[in-house]
């Protein structure tokens, strides 16, 4: 990812926008390739694609240090990549190969990586709320200045443990950022059918400072997160970010016919009007930070990286069967 900006002497804000764009694009193309691998029966199991929600992960992670922590979800590829995971080891994990981040033992829903502070994706909805809060607890106790960002979908608001740990984080002023990705659906059920009251008020009720943001605008996500991270890092306690977004594809790769739970028009509207990549492209070009040539080059460079990564992963060996009994105990 080395493309130079369209003009030298860009501002910090502009350089960041270019970075955010490239990261979002990498996630988008990664996920499209995942879908392709699944469709061609080259990938075992299922995957939950992050397409449409890229601005949230990249905006949040842009505001984090490399050694800050994140926890992720079943829809985790975007979070992992945004936090710095390499494409090849990501694909290798998704294919169950030894070269993957978890030696193939974790798969799509369990990618973890200590090197980038990734405590792990999690297949239990809200399953990592405790872990992220515990990481923030360590950071505070050890005084290492780190924060923990806990990603979860709005569906996780149904799980009581989220409130338990928010409460403790507030009582103990732990540096944790709860990032709620409101993509409107808990699987195949609209959040309005499952969620009473107001999530922002909920957070406040537990003493957690809350903000909301347009989750399709990576720059906006970055700005508000940067502010919230500072709040947490300063020791002022946990924060809650309500990011409004949308998943463009199915709940998972096999969720093709979606008309029974959401209208085609709704999908089309989001894809045409609210695509985070389009929104960023518009900003980059309007502000003359990037032009078509730069954008094309970025696309083909990332595409090539992804292709290499996929080839690496496809060629990589599976773990030897006897590895199955390793790593049960440390």
């Amino acid at each position, binding site marked *: 990812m080395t493309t130079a900006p369209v003009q030298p002497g860009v501002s910090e804000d502009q350089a960041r926008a270019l970075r955010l764009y490239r990261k979002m694009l990498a996630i988008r193309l990664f996920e499209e390739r995942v879908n392709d691998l699944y469709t061609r029966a080259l990938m075992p199991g299922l995957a939950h694609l992050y397409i449409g929600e890229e601005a949230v992960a990249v905006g949040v992670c842009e505001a984090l240090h490399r050694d800050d922590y994140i926890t992720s979800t079943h829809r985790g590829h975007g979070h992992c990549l945004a936090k710095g995971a390499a494409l090849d080891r990501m694909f290798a994990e998704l294919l169950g190969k030894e070269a993957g981040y978890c030696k193939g033992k974790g798969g799509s829903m369990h990618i973890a990586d200590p090197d980038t502070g990734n405590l792990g994706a999690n297949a*239990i909805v*809200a399953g990592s709320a405790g872990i992220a809060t515990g990481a923030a607890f360590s950071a505070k106790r050890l005084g290492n200045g780190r924060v923990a960002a806990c990603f979860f979908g709005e569906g996780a608001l149904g799980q009581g443990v989220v409130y338990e740990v928010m409460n403790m984080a507030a009582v103990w002023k732990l540096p944790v950022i709860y990032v709620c990705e409101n993509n409107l659906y808990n699987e195949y059920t609209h959040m309005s059918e499952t969620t009473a009251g107001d999530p922002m008020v909920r957070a406040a009720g537990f003493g957690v400072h809350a903000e909301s943001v347009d989750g399709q605008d990576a720059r906006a996500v970055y700005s508000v997160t940067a502010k919230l991270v500072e709040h947490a890092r300063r020791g002022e306690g946990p924060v809650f970010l309500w990011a409004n977004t949308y998943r463009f594809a199915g709940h998972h790769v096999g969720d093709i016919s979606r008309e029974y*739970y959401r209208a085609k028009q709704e999908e089309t509207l989001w894809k045409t009007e609210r695509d985070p990549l389009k929104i960023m492209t518009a900003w980059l070009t309007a502000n003359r930070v990037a032009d078509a040539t730069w954008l094309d080059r970025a696309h083909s460079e990332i595409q090539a990286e992804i292709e290499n990564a996929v080839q690496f992963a496809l060629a990589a060996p599976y773990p030897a*069967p006897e590895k199955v009994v390793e790593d049960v105990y440390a």
Partner: protein
Amino acid sequence: MPEVAVAVRELTLGEAVKEALAEEMRRDPRVFIIGEDVAEAGTTFKVLTGLVQEFGPERVLDTPISEPGFTGIGVGAAMTGLRPVVDIMFGDFAGLIMDQMANQAAKVHYMSGGRWKVPMVLRTTLGATRRSAAQHSQSLHAWFCHIPGLKVVLPSTPYDAKGLLKSAIRDDNPVVFYEDKMMYKLKGPVPEEEYTIPLGIAEVKRMGEDLTIVATSSMVQVALGAAKLLEEYDVSAEVVDPRTLWPLDEETLIESARKTSRVMVIDEGYERYGAGAELTTVIQAGAFYDLEAPVKRIGAMHVPIPFSPPLEDATVPTEASVFQAAMALCGRKL
């Protein structure tokens, strides 16, 4: 009169489950379904498709992702005049509801001196090899079996699934009903006529002389497959399916063990401290003096279930591994 060949109707296990639910909901207006994505989506496994259309959203309720909460609501609803069927998508989520099931549902009747009842069914799933990794592949029924006050049902065929589920719904106690995810598409005969299968009766799924394979849920199919392989080596295997792990039909298990004198127990839960250990204990206690060899217990490997296909496949009993263990148990070389 000319003879008419009546074709036996075949249903998948998923269809049999749905039919049982639909029939009981028609029969008894108190029965309702509650869980995540059970209505329009008909569950992740599409088992309940169509029920909300027939019974309406008041009786097929989509919930928030709140397993402890809606299981608890199920307990309360069961105590006060309804008969909930609570849907827990993956059996792995048992960890979230054990307090509601073990401390509330299981104990209400006893703690109240028999004055309150909890006629509720908890439907959930078990089974690996779907490449769903460690948190979506477990078979945790042993946890529920351990708790007095609960009943636990593990059907192995569409016929059994329908008959046992109907009994479970009519039972006045909390019943945990396990469906193997890999068996939803398994077909088998299911008569059109009404029938139920009482809880607590094992079934000999295949008669045999040389050894007994006691198997649960999907492992019954594995055992039947292994029995076929054994046949080629002139080993005659009896396959016994307890069908309900509690109440447990000890007699049928012990009788078969006495007859064949060699016993294997196959269950897809983690092997150690799993359901197979209880079956083994019961059999060795009841048939000890007729046994030629120790009971051979096989379960899933004592490891979290890995994602990688070659690893995952190594963790569960298969026809081949059961066949080999059976040959060894019978002192036969390959």
